[in-house]
């Protein structure tokens, strides 16, 4: 190991801070196991102990009593296309991208630093965090603190035994509903795999704390257009010419269905599994 240390001292890191990173040095395998217990992630034991000022060094809160916390999440941000786009589209919100792969998260971090240097004053409200969304969201975020969560082109995990790894599932929707502000919070999902889109729609509709937005409501939301065209994966899909499917859900304050003894095992209830169901 000493040999490489000496060589590193001569060459330094691949991209200097402030330089725009090149994607070819940060390519990483597309699939990662989110259920692994042995990965080393850093996370605070309680969200109140998390200091976001290292992520947003030049951002000052309008209200001196309130800390800076992220309000918009881009889960699985990839190479950061949407995170950067949302930063200018929603200048009043604090954007955070979450990515589980180390190399790609580092790429996004360098990209944001380079953007901040090139356009002074802009992109101060965007940052990235390397973390496993499925496990550690309660450690970072407080209840009802998020306004938007984006799931852009998530890993479809086609095999049935891998369905628990999908980022949108019954279990996780309850957690997302806990973090979204009632009546204001929105959940956006877009994918080019029709099977996955049907899965998203089925589970979000069955969840009593989410309401599906109509097409007019979706057209009025500028974030939908950003999600459609600004992500790296989205641009790749456009070039190849396949369809994109999207849906947006609003977090409602009171559950739409109350569970009682009568409907506990009803066939269409949230979470009811009968013999042939997946």
């Amino acid at each position: 190991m000493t040999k490489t240390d000496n060589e590193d001292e001569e060459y330094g890191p691949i991209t200097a801070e402030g330089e725009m990173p090149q994607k070819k040095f940060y390519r990483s395998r597309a699939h990662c196991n989110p259920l692994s217990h042995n990965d080393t992630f850093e996370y605070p034991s309680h969200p109140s102990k998390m200091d976001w000022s290292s992520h947003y060094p030049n951002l000052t809160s309008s209200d001196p009593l309130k800390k800076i916390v992220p309000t918009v999440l881009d889960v699985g941000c990839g190479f950061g296309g949407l995170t950067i786009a949302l930063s200018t589209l929603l200048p009043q919100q604090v954007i955070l991208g979450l990515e589980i792969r180390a190399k790609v998260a580092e790429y996004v971090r360098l990209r944001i630093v380079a953007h901040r240097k090139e356009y002074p004053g802009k992109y101060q409200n965007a940052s990235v965090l390397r973390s496993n969304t499925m496990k550690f969201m309660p450690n970072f975020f407080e209840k009802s603190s998020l306004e938007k969560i984006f799931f852009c082109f998530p890993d479809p995990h086609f095999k049935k035994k891998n369905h628990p790894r999908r980022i949108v599932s019954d279990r996780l929707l309850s957690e997302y509903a806990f973090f979204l502000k009632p009546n204001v919070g929105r959940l956006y999902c877009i994918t080019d795999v029709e099977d996955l889109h049907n899965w998203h729609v089925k589970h979000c509709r069955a969840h009593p704390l989410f309401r599906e937005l109509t097409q007019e409501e979706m057209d009025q939301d500028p974030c939908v257009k950003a999600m459609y065209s600004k992500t790296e994966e989205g641009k790749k899909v456009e070039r190849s010419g396949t369809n994109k499917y999207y849906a947006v859900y609003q977090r409602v304050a009171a559950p739409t269905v109350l569970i009682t003894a009568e409907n506990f095992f009803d066939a269409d209830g949230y979470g009811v599994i009968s013999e042939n169901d997946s």
Partner: protein
Amino acid sequence: YFYIYLISIVVSILHQLPLIENNISHNRYFKNMKELISVSKDAIIVAMNDQAYVAVATAEDDFSLIQLLCGTSLHTKSAPTVDSSHEEKRQFETNNIDCNQIQAVAITSSNANDRIYCAVSRYDKSLSIYSMSNNDTTNIKETSEAAPILVHKTNKRCSALEFANISSDNDSSNGRGVLDVIVAADLAGDVHAFPVELLDTITTKVGQKRFLLGHTASMLTSLKIVHDKIFTADRDEKVRVSSFPQTFEVLGYLLGNESYVTDIDVKQDKYCVTVSGDCTMRLWDYRTYQEILCIHLSRELNGESCQVSNNEQGVDEPQKNVRCLPVRVCFNPEGNLIAVIFNIMNCVDIYAIKESKGGEVSGVQVEKMQSIQCLKPLGMAFFRDDLIVLTVEPKYFMCFRRNGDDEFADQEHQCKLVDSVRCIGEKNGIDMPESILEMDGATGKIKLERNMKDEIEGFVEHKPWLEGKRVQRKREKEKRRKKRRLEELANQEDGNVER
């Protein structure tokens, strides 16, 4: 002389019982039993290796014992394919595990009718439900048997079971529920609810179950249902509080433990106590999701001592203290005592809760009241006025009652239940496990612990973006390629000129 020699060997082996045993015999590696004892108003259920017994309290001190039989697959979900059942059988054979080993037990007295329901979940992922009448006092002398009324198949092994009531639409003012369900927490992080009985009005098929909530990517270690809330504790230091039965609504998280949570218990109105792998016991107020106090559990190697700290104050532990890993905790019915048992230790610790004068939650104090000496307890519960403890052979079962000094004393010869359970254990030669935590065969560590890569020798974290070498290598490669291309062009030109 030969016989004396034999007897002396046997006696010397029996005398080897050190206070804290560190060696775990190899054939006990794979057992993961969590809840081995559970109590309800009138009955106790205990699990001894692969047999379960229910003791129904009849008269003052009398119990009638019922043995719970394993069910064959009477009613199961769609039969597994041939391949999977072969795989399962092969797995069991290689691990030498009896697939009837009990993982968790639960018992309740139903509100709707005068019956007692119990549930047993076993290693082969079966969840059996038994039903017995409360008034059956016929067999006191002999042990009767009961077959399961319903057997469910779960996806993964269950680590915690609890019975619950779902109230009806019409009965919302009345607290008593109508539908009894068994709620099971499994090792994949999911909590499912299964029907207890097949009633024509509510469920039609046996395979029906309801997914209540899930901790993704984690294992559940404990589950408690109190009135309209459900508490679930997992391997990632979190305790999640959700509404019940509207389990899709998360109410809050109790965060603050630094290692996997091994057990939780909840008292009716405000307290929740957790014990975890970082060797602490924490008391929480679950209305505000705040930690009230934290106690570091440790004891000196020679004597006993316990370090207590409140909230932020840390106490330095002297070097000779041994940290004890707590595995089970429970409140007594009044809510003023907490009992804790540890992993492979010969004691049960009792703590007393002292409320503050003004009734504020922050002024609560918890002090160690007594440490009961008892051989390797595996499970405990407060039943009426007594503390009953399930332990290893040869005693199997012990019962403690508070005497005049307010201390718990062994009721060795006054408790009939103890005698009957001990008889069963001795008669069948039951081998109780050493510990209720599952150990990994390869590394010898507890499976709930994180396998941190830092601990592997020689591990260096891979941060390829810090290696500037790669850029240099790529540039040199491009240079070489360009040179080669120019040479080739030059050769071609020469070739053309020559022609």
